[in-house]
């Protein structure tokens, strides 16, 4: 069933608990983001695009898989907007769909090396799969 962008924006706000209206557009979140260079849509843009209900492009963004959950954007936001929670909520909107997991269990053996800690696999599964 098709879900409108407006409905998805509502879900994102509900899942994240973020109030996008608090943002004063200073850009510190993107300035602090260590993954900025590998993102096509940056943290401050997530905030304004959710606010505008412009969700379609966010669902396709490679930034969903490059956010490191390092919480630099959360720590350095002067308005406590928590952009990382928004990115997480969009990622969940994607992977909670049937068959839309970004990482599949059968891919894991090929990604392992002798030293890879279990923590990496547990983290990646929590972030990339449902």
């Amino acid at each position, binding site marked *: 069933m098709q879900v409108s962008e407006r409905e998805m924006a509502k879900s994102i706000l509900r899942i994240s608990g973020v109030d996008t209206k608090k943002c004063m557009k200073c850009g510190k979140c993107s300035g602090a983001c260590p993954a900025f260079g590998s993102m096509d849509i940056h943290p401050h843009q997530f905030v304004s695009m959710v606010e505008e209900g412009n969700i379609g492009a966010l669902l396709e963004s490679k930034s969903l898989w490059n956010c490191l959950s390092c919480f630099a954007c959360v720590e350095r936001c002067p308005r406590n907007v928590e952009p990382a929670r928004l990115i997480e909520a969009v990622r969940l909107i994607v992977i909670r769909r049937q068959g839309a997991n970004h990482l599949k269990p059968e891919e894991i053996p090929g990604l392992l090396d002798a030293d890879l800690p279990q923590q990496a696999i*547990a983290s990646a599964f929590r972030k990339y799969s449902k």
Partner: protein
Amino acid sequence: MRKCLKDGGRIRCGQHRIDDMEFCYYPGCTLKTKAKDLDTCARSAAQALGVTMTEVPDWQCCGAVYPMARDEIATRLASVRALRCAGERRQSLLTLCSACHHVIKRVNHDMHTDADIRAKVNNYMRPDTEYAGETRVVHYLEMLRDTVGFDELRKKVKAPLTGKKIAAYYGCLLLRPSAVMQLDDPENPTIMEDLIRSMGAQPVVYPYRNECCGGYITIENNAVVAEMCKNILDSAVEKGAEAIITACPLCLYNLKKNGKHALPVYYFTELLAQALEAGAVEGGTVRAG
């Protein structure tokens, strides 16, 4: 609400005093497998310092990343089970892995401050008494600073690491978000540098010590991780570091893998056990000396 009050100079938090030397300990998945050194050295060092670590029986993996979604409770249950176990023993929950500490501390904060999450988790788990975040979560570093004390630790050091220039790598998860983690100043932390000093070594302060190593992205995008680790390692080397210490198995993996072994990377507990000349403990051996 958690009650903190002064009791003859001692601070009481919930049921557990800050100077109690007995802790309930949550090791986590990686400390039983790839990061055994982090765990065994912590146990032997604790023994040398008079601290008792009783492992949570039947603990479950914390999930390694904090569930930011406010509509999920399943991903919070493992943390709450461990927290309740410590609470029933009237002890603080001691953590060691940065990721476990981050997840459990933040889930505990949710249980304390978010009425909706608290109600759903308690409705699901049906405990005899509602759990509302009463247990104190203490990272091993905090235990060294606040319970043992770095001055006391210094007195117990038998093999000081004199002259060694050691860089502390904090990464993300111990420090941020500081409003919840409250471990140290998120931009200018000192707890690991103080530990390094108490072991007789010289701390090296460098700009990238609280920048991300790339974390779990390592599993599919090593180019991004390699660049971030290079920045961290170059920064530490430039400031004269001879070794780097961390509390996180994934940070250690990323730094080692991308550092081409130019700069040795250790768990902080490895150097601590060495400085204390703490011997082998049950379940593992310590490479002391």
